[in-house]
């Protein structure tokens, strides 16, 4: 038998999700971290950044459900997500978080634009700020809570990767949306997040052994390389002098964060298509006498 497993066919199925979900991994983090950043900006007396970040968060948090609904097999049944409150399902919890976060973010922004009910607005903003944290990282749990070897094996690192990515995206968007004199924290968040993202990725690939090839090859590998180039160029430009150069840098880093998210997304498909990835994670355990799961 030259084919691995059964005629080389997948053992676990690749996801049925389409590009919309890849984008959602990006917009969710962007929305969540932007909301948190907006709240922090408010608290540190930076209303310009607070409003700009809030606008970014609002846009992202409303695009997100549209992406999710579009990807459903039966979009008209999207409300069924709210039929239950189900802690065992990261997607269910995430839907609630998205709902809460979206309502709070959008509400706060509308009140802010209208210039009314400032106390209500402040409360909503704070809620959005807090909700922004789980919103930024829960998708990592969602991916990790599958049988997919690339994602499941990466479950200890994906949350950090996504958190860093969220910070990088929110920071970059903040830089692009805010006059530089007010965008300082965004810029620092952007730089910190980008570096953190690359570190998390490297740590993950070291930890998961042979399965790392799913992230490094094929379409996933191309996204990953693109992300590295964009991040590298973006960091360089962001540390250079000049407003326009720095804005370009921020743009590149925003794109890099998106590319990084797609690399993770695509890696899951590849890791399922070739059954050797799954066998790698399960036969190893058996040979080493390790019990079910690690």
């Amino acid at each position, binding site marked *: 038998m030259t084919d691995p497993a059964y005629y080389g066919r997948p053992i676990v199925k690749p996801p049925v999700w389409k590009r919309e979900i890849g984008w959602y991994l990006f917009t969710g983090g962007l929305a969540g*971290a932007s909301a*948190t950043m907006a709240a922090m900006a408010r608290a540190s007396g930076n209303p310009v950044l607070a409003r700009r970040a809030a606008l970014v968060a609002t846009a992202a948090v409303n695009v997100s459900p549209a992406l999710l609904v579009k990807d459903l097999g039966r979009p008209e049944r999207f409300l069924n*997500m709210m039929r239950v409150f189900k802690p065992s*399902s990261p997607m269910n919890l995430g839907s609630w978080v998205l709902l809460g976060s979206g309502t709070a973010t959008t509400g706060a922004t509308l009140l802010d634009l209208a210039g009314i009910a400032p106390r209500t607005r402040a409360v909503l903003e704070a809620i959005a700020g807090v909700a922004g944290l789980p919103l930024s990282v829960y998708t990592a749990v969602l991916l990790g809570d599958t049988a997919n070897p690339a994602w499941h094996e990466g479950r200890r690192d994906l949350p950090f990767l996504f958190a860093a990515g969220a910070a990088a995206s929110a920071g970059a968007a903040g830089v692009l949306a805010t006059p530089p004199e007010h965008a300082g924290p965004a810029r620092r968040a952007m730089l910190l997040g980008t570096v953190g993202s690359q570190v998390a990725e490297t740590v993950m690939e070291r930890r998961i052994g042979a399965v790392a090839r799913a992230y490094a090859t094929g379409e996933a590998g191309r996204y990953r390389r693109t992300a590295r180039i964009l991040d590298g160029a973006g960091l360089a430009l962001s540390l250079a002098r000049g407003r326009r150069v720095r804005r370009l840098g921020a743009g590149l880093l925003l794109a890099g964060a998106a590319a990084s998210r797609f690399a993770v997304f695509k890696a899951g498909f590849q890791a399922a298509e070739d059954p050797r990835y799954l066998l790698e994670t399960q036969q190893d355990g058996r040979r080493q006498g390790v019990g079910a799961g690690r």
Partner: protein
Amino acid sequence: MSARTEAWPDTYGAEARPRMGFFTDTSVCIGCKACEVACKEWNLVPEDGLVWSGESFDNTSALGANSWRHVAFVEQTTPLRVDGDGADGEGEEPFRWLMSSDVCKHCTESACLNVCPTGAIFRTELGTVVVQEDVCNGCGYCVPACPFGVLDRRELPAPDRGGRADGRVWKCTLCYDRTREGMTPACAQACPTESIQYGPLDELRERAAGRLDKVVADGFAGARLYGDDPGDGVGGFGAFFLLLDEPETYGLPPQPRDSTRDLGGMWRTAAVAGAALLAGLGAAFLAGRDGAGS
């Protein structure tokens, strides 16, 4: 050893019935595919492609939304029996042809059920796992969650959608409509050699242990039970097997695991990542305390 699950029979109370399941004894499977046809006829599963695979006599290839029983064929140049005698021509290379009818395992700890965000997937009073097709909105989360690659989304047109894709996830229902009336599932009913046996899971496990002893005593090489152990990664299968080779030979995972077992750890990791995000963003703001911007 009790074949129980967490949410049942506690949730069903008096309505709970003995847990029912399948024992598929592949040592007597003759590869006739009556199970595939009976299942499709009873459940009105659509024909899903006239595609010749060239993979021995298997043109079904895998379980999916439109194949709930899948007969696998594996041709091997190894003898059927341990002592080399048996279905190998004298003077020829030894040869055996393994045949096995795969099906949804109706796991005790069911990842698909656990991750389903709408609660469409539920456990019946018989302990089987069923998708409610009037609830499922086709989010597709269960697809990568299943450690066996059983579930899939049906893209074929649905009659109630005027030619548009069905969009929901479908899988073996263990003929819920038959079994709750005390009838035998269609595949077990049709199987001429009783390779597929239906009954109370406790009884099946006992019978299978005895059967394994006999098969081993009869000299069949590689005989083993797969999924009979409540101590395995999914708490034991509701539909388990007697195989004549390693699970991966049949396209089955060697160490299937319900990823929900790791969910607690994943949320903890996410919480730390969220805290790190909070800290990182906070640092971005604090660092700018002396000298804003830039």
